């Protein structure tokens, strides 16, 4: 049933939902259902790619900070404070608003301003795991720092990282949709869910279905990631896990 999301059909402009077009059509006569399916590719790609890079950066910084302590820790945490002070949207507005919005630039800026939370979580986890006996005995055995970090500490801090990564995908999708909504993210004719929402907003009185369905796509997806994240936390976190059993 999905059709070409870019195919314009001027005989079917702004049609309400019907059997032929389950989500209706927009004011170029394009099938909204197909556009939302294709938009999902962009929104999800951005969410997952940005999360991946943010988690990698955050994990490295958090592990260095937590394991080595001392001045590297103090400097890195101060840096995290500074980065957290920037409202992410402001930076995106500045950098993207100044140039022609591009897909790669948006990925880069979003990743560079999303890793701080992960870094904090990882650091706190490393601080506790570092004191465990098995880590101490590994150090006492004279294993190299790299081996201790990656074979003894990293596997044991993996679950909070997975949980926060899952939750982060949802929040990145929200931010991307906001950017595209104000016209600074994905540019037409390409369309993420935010871009489609913006289109709907411009014709709110005439074609409510554009806003409704593109909005629903965002909400359902983000709820999904949030539920999976919360569920994973309940399973992986020993503290809540004990309570539930």
């Amino acid at each position, binding site marked *: 049933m999905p059709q070409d999301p870019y195919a314009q059909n001027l005989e079917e402009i702004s049609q309400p939902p019907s059997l032929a077009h389950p989500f209706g059509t927009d004011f170029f006569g394009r099938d909204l259902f197909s556009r939302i399916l294709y938009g999902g590719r962009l929104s999800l790609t951005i969410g997952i790619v940005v999360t991946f890079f943010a988690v990698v950066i955050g994990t490295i910084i958090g592990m260095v900070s937590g394991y080595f302590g001392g001045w590297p820790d103090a400097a890195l945490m*101060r840096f995290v404070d500074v980065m957290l002070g920037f409202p992410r949207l402001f930076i995106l*507005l500045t950098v993207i608003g*100044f*140039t022609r919005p591009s897909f790669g630039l948006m990925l880069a800026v979003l990743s560079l301003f999303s890793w701080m939370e992960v870094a904090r979580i990882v650091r706190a986890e490393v601080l506790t795991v570092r004191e465990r006996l098995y880590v101490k005995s590994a150090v006492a055995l004279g294993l190299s720092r790299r081996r201790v970090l990656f074979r003894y500490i990293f596997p044991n801090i993996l679950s909070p990282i997975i949980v926060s990564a899952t939750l982060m995908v*949802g929040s990145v999708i*929200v931010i991307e949709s906001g950017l595209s*909504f104000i016209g600074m993210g994905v540019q037409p004719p390409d369309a993420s869910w935010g871009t489609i929402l913006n289109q*709907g907003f411009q014709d709110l009185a005439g074609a409510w279905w554009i806003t409704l369905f593109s909005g629903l796509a965002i909400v359902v997806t983000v709820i999904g990631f949030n539920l999976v994240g919360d569920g994973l936390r309940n399973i992986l976190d020993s503290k809540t896990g004990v309570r539930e059993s």
Partner: protein
Amino acid sequence: MDSGERAPGNRRLTERFEEVSAFLFRRLIGIVPVVLIGATLIFIIVHLAPGDPTTIFLDPNAGANTREQIAERFGLDRPLATQYLKWLSGVIVHFDFGNSFSTGRPATEMIVEALGPTLILTGFSLIFGILIGTLLGIFAAIREGRAFDKTISAVMLFFYSMPSFLIGVLLLGLFAVRLDWLPSSQMTSLFHEQLSFNGRIVDSIRHLILPVTTLGVSFSAVFFKYIRGSMVESLHSNYILAARARGVSSGKIFFKYSLRNSLLPLISTIGLSLPMLFSGALIVEVVFSLPGMGRVMFYAALARDYPVIIAAGSLAFLSVVLGNLLADILYMVADPRIRLKGRSS
């Protein structure tokens, strides 16, 4: 400070007071370098970001000569380091961020004007969000696992997962476009000045209802999640079990034992979520065409108006840092156990 008043003995109280004021002093001093670094980073990002402000004022066919003249007028022809030093001395000595490229007015003046609507919007929304979120969170935690809790939690998860501007667009579509009950944009009507005093108040309130509801619902979902989570966790802890075993009444357990311990994380949550709240307010302002910081930043970015965007960014940064400090102070007032010396990093 307040928390000390209950502590027995005057000596402890003065000690506590000295401790707190020393801590405050240290933190306030600590803010200065952080804010300077932040403002410097903003300056660098803005100046290094691709795009040239001079092109905005010219048609594409204009010669290089005209372009150079404009660059000279804005001081953009000098090396970045010189520009930076000039800017920095202006900021430190006169608190002068330079004049806007597009309007020619001082950047600080434009921002102070735009600050009013933003503060009104976020202020009311924050009160709305904290009240609704906390109350629902408490009652959901008390009835954990029952129908009430499940319903409210599902509804709140829905709003938590929804971008705030989407709530705004839906409310706007329903109440302003479809039903035409409330105005869709601006802080006041066009004929605002001609109204009586009461009429003006009603007019302003009518304009605020939709944006404040939008942000307020969005905030309340965030606060609900935290308050419910931490209440549920504390209700399952051993000291609550011990209190129950001793026969302490349920009401006392909920409000005196559990709630007190749960309000602490809320305080730091509010402080830490300030950047997020700020970003939400910016887009909601764009949706409802409010003349606030969001619009100023949005148009300054489009026009590559360096002085305005740097000033706005620095202010946003400062407010976030101050918010975090405030959260730390409130946290300390609420919980005397927190050891001050360890908290500086």
